[in-house]
């Protein structure tokens, strides 16, 4: 089993996104660095639009992830309602 990961800005704009990821991926581990948060999780991380919207109290499109994203490791799958990162092996 390998970790996938997503690294996001650690700022006010990304706070809701980070909280949503942590809630929806209970196996994830977050590492806080200066200015950024790296979230690792075995095999798969998924981000649900609804969860993010619940956190930030406004509508959110999956594309907006580009404003907070710093890096990721894994294959990307995205649609209207979710953004997922996974390995295929």
């Amino acid at each position, binding site marked *: 089993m*390998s*970790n*996938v990961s997503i*690294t996001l*800005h650690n700022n006010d704009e990304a706070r809701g996104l980070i909280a949503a990821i942590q809630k929806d991926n209970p196996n994830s581990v977050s590492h806080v*660095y*200066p*200015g*950024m948060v790296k979230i690792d999780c075995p095999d798969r991380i998924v981000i649900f639009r609804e969860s993010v919207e619940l956190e930030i109290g406004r509508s959110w*499109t*999956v*594309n*907006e992830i*580009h*404003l*907070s*994203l*710093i*890096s*990721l*490791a*894994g*294959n*990307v799958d*995205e*649609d*209207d309602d979710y953004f997922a990162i996974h*390995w*295929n*092996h």
Partner: protein
Amino acid sequence: MRMMIILPFIGIIERETTMNVQKKISLKDRYRILTRGLDWETSYQPMGKVFPDVGFEGIKIRNWDDFNDPFRLTMDAYWRFQAEKERKLYAVLDSFSQNNGQTAITDGRYVNTLKLFLTGISPDEYMAHRGFAHVGRQIPNAGLRISAQMQALDELRHAQTQIHTIGQYNKHFSGLHSFRRMHDRVWYLSVPKSFFDDAVTAGPFEYMVAIGFSFEYVLTNLLFVPFMSGAAYNGDMATVTFGFSAQSDEARHMTLGLEAIKFILEQHEDNVPIVQHWIDKWFWRGYRVLTLVAMMMDFMLPRRIMSWKDAWDIYFNDAGGALFGDLARYGITLPKYVDVPAKEVNRLSTEAWSIFYQYTHAAAFHTWLPTDQEMDWLSASYGPDWDRLYRPRFLHWRQMEKEGHRYYNNALPQLCQVCQIPMAFTEPDDPTRVAFRDTVYRGERYHFCSDGCKNIFDHEPEKYVQAWLPVHQIFQGNCGGASLDQVLDWYGIEKGVDNMDYAGSPDERTWKEWEAMRGRVAG
């Protein structure tokens, strides 16, 4: 009898369609319609003539439509997000310049890492821009082409924002003023320059594997994270900001690189050995360029973030392992010579810094010997061998400095024909013996620093014999003249200002003046 009123009837139907409460189109569909629908099969001019560069590399594509777009960005969203990022970045840059942010760094020596970056890396961002424009012109598939085009735009962004960010340092420090001129001429800058020249002159598929995959996916974290974290640890908030901002584009680029390579591998089994060789080649080529990063991390940052060894473990061994696990089902294996970096890891940065220390008179940044404390950190990071093999060397040089005989190497070094680094690396299994490899091609002998570089040459000798080798060029009289002074003039290096040791440099004087000023204000 509706058939009797065909024309109005069509009209009514159409009105009804537009008046219906309209269903929402999904992100995937919207992207597909707006992007993938744009292409057509040309017929007045044959496709082979419209896209002439996709055939010669031997890559077989059964169906271009199989390409799976990683991020479904349309241009409107691209403009919106990128504008937002740029507004934020330039607000920070403006405030950095208004507040003289360059005075807040840990130490004046730190600026030398920025010199290495602006002269070595930023011009390569520009080259990446042109390379992706070429792919964005040549690939006969709308999805891949647009992703490449957006990356071409992004890479221009990186070059330009780096110039604007480091431009503030250029106003106060030496060695940055002629970064463009230097990149095309100075001996050690031919290492990153030849790397990108190599990629851009390759075919579009190789370029995607070289830069999109091997560089962006496998190695980029080793380049950017050390520089950006280094900036963060050393108080350079402007560089941190552009770094993080650029990384958000890199995440998109990495994903494109991975999707592109999977697409090529899935199209035909004959593609696998071709791609494997490219992975082998570009892994090694990239690793050799990263020598400069290793040196920057272990010797040039006043406040260290982590050792080169730690970075290699985290960003190559861990992350790379998962990645190659994913590619194993296509028959792709870890790159050839992947074991060598582990064997060199304890000495790579030391061997590199030693080169620059000896040739400080011909460099566009300053050098210095590590302090006792810094040597303790190196030995803690690299183990007892470091103390045994390298501490004595630095102590010896320190003694020579004390006696007024600072050591300069005035002989021009032999360069590796492929990576163009002076031949100073030692044997993977014996750190006391310098490694030499050679090949005779068409009656001429060519020299290499390693099996990795020799292997690259032997696959494409006709390409690598063309290399513009700085030392050869000096001997041939193409670099302004035969004396060091003439060559430095030609390089654009200001003598006694840009080169030589940090101690006694104008940079050091500037930094000490600022420290004194701070003392007065505080007092």
